[in-house]
């Protein structure tokens, strides 16, 4: 029995009740013209991104994720299809309407894209200055509070070149938030950062999502980023969305080969090593997946006692998907009542997959 098929699983484990989509794609596609030929970047796709969630798009370079993200604020023009964002038909917006719309959508970038000629405060103030709807003093107040929010009070008058990568991305985040957007697009926001800084930036993004109710759409090539902060994920491969759903479901039970590869990369699983391990043990080999509270229960010992089976743990990982704990163990069972053991595990909400 899988985790997601349990009644109430959505509320318990995926954090948020179902909400209206803030971004809708209807058969949107995009092809680039290169040397007279049309090269498809994104195949016709339908997508619904729920308001207030963190939606991850994962794919290798060239998979179309960057194109998909840029279609949302029309930095890329779609070749066809309809895009709706916050009730507005983005695809039909004209120049002035498009500019006003873009102010409701913040964006941060892998290489930060800060203006090197402007200070931190000037960079953060830029979208407000360009909009030209606020007085200088109102802008100054707002900029000060944004800089405080991202923890850069001491660096307001520095130039980007004087900051570390993590600090630069914080400036990028403050800048993107300055026009009070409803949506924040994150283009590989942590790919240029070291692991520790990545953690801090992801935490800041999760806080922004929680505190401001902002919808975040982020693209990445690291499953780990998806696991840590996303609610939903779509996997892209060669311009197709090959898999999508709640992160727990996709991460714990990947279906498509591309998704499986991403998960294996994140889990650092080596197929060959694993099969070499299999040769060393007897009996039935199962992959047990725990999600949520089950992770903390002393299940294996209890099942071993009740069904009289012995077990060997071959590989395992206990971690969290967003805030929710999960565990995935590969276990070889020997002797006793195997059927009973499997029933007991299933009854305790453990997902079973027979490996051998």
């Amino acid at each position, binding site marked *: 029995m899988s985790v997601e098929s349990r009644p109430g699983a959505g509320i318990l484990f995926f954090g948020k009740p179902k909400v209206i989509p803030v971004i809708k794609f209807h058969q949107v596609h995009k092809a680039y013209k290169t040397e007279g030929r049309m090269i498809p970047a994104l195949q016709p796709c339908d997508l619904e991104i729920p308001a207030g969630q963190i939606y991850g798009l994962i794919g290798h370079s060239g998979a179309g994720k960057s194109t998909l993200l840029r279609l949302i604020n029309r*930095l890329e023009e779609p070749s066809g299809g309809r895009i709706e964002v916050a009730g507005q038909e983005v695809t039909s917006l004209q120049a002035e309407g*498009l*500019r006003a719309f873009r102010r409701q959508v913040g964006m941060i*970038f892998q*290489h930060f894209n*800060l*203006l090197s*000629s*402007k200070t931190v405060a000037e960079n953060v103030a830029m*979208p407000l200055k360009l909009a030209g709807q606020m007085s200088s003093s109102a802008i100054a107040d707002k900029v000060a509070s944004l800089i405080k929010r991202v923890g850069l009070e001491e660096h307001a008058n520095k130039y980007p070149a004087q900051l570390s990568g993590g600090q630069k991305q914080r400036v990028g985040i403050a800048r993107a938030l300055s026009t009070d957007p409803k949506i924040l697009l994150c283009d590989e926001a942590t790919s240029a950062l070291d692991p520790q800084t990545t953690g801090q930036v992801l935490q800041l993004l999760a806080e922004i999502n929680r505190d401001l109710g902002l919808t975040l759409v982020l693209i990445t090539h690291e499953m780990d980023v998806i696991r840590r902060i996303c609610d939903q994920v779509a996997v892209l491969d060669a311009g197709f969305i090959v898999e999508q759903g709640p992160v727990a479901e996709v991460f714990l039970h990947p279906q498509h080969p591309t998704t499986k590869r991403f998960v294996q990369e994140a889990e650092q699983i080596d197929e060959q090593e694993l099969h070499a391990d299999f040769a060393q043990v007897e009996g039935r080999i199962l992959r047990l997946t725990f999600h949520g509270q089950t992770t903390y229960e002393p299940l294996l010992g209890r099942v071993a006692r009740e069904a009289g089976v012995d077990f060997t743990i071959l590989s395992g990982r206990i971690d969290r998907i967003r805030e929710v704990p999960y565990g995935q163990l590969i276990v070889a069972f020997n002797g006793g009542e195997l059927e009973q053991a499997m029933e007991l595990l299933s009854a305790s909400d453990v997902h079973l997959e027979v490996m051998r």
Partner: protein
Amino acid sequence: MEALLINVDWYEIGIATLETLLMLGGSLLFTVIFGLPLGVLLFLTGPKQLFQQKGFYAILSLITNILRSLPFIILLIVMIPVTVMITGTSLGVAGAIPPLVVGATPFFARLVETALREVDRGIIEATQAMGATTKQIIFNALLPEARPGIIAATTVTAITLVSYTAMAGVVGAGGLGDLAIRFGYQRFQTDVMVVTVLLLLVLVQILQSVGDRLVVHYSRK
């Protein structure tokens, strides 16, 4: 000392220096006024840029290249009728400035185009994502970001103009270079040659070091 510089007429040298400075200042000012927008236009309409216009860019690029490949001395003479139309005379400092501007503008515009291309494309994209108009992208992002490069381009152009002014003697504009040719070279007055060349050297040195300092001052990288 007096014996060494026997042919040097310091009054003449003073006048020539002033003429050189006038030609340089006047032509540099107009070169920047015309060259900067032209450079921006070349950049924007160039390949894979904001307003990519293949045909327009090709024509603009060709005109720029033709003007750049014309030897300045030829330009100076070919331009005489146009110069008369603009300044009323083809002689003196006023007669030299239009050809100097026409000669230096395409050169400066190309340097500006290159400086703008150095600006990270991501910055343009980020500014677009803020909902900026094209005008805002140019004035609030592109030009400030390319400022050190544009200052360096201005420095190189100014120094190029100094060497162009030496040829302006052909239309009687005077200047230090003209003095060096007429007295130093043609009359074998080595002392005049040395003094004028030294003065030109000092001028170039000053231009370069001021330019370099400004570049450092405005570079935040």
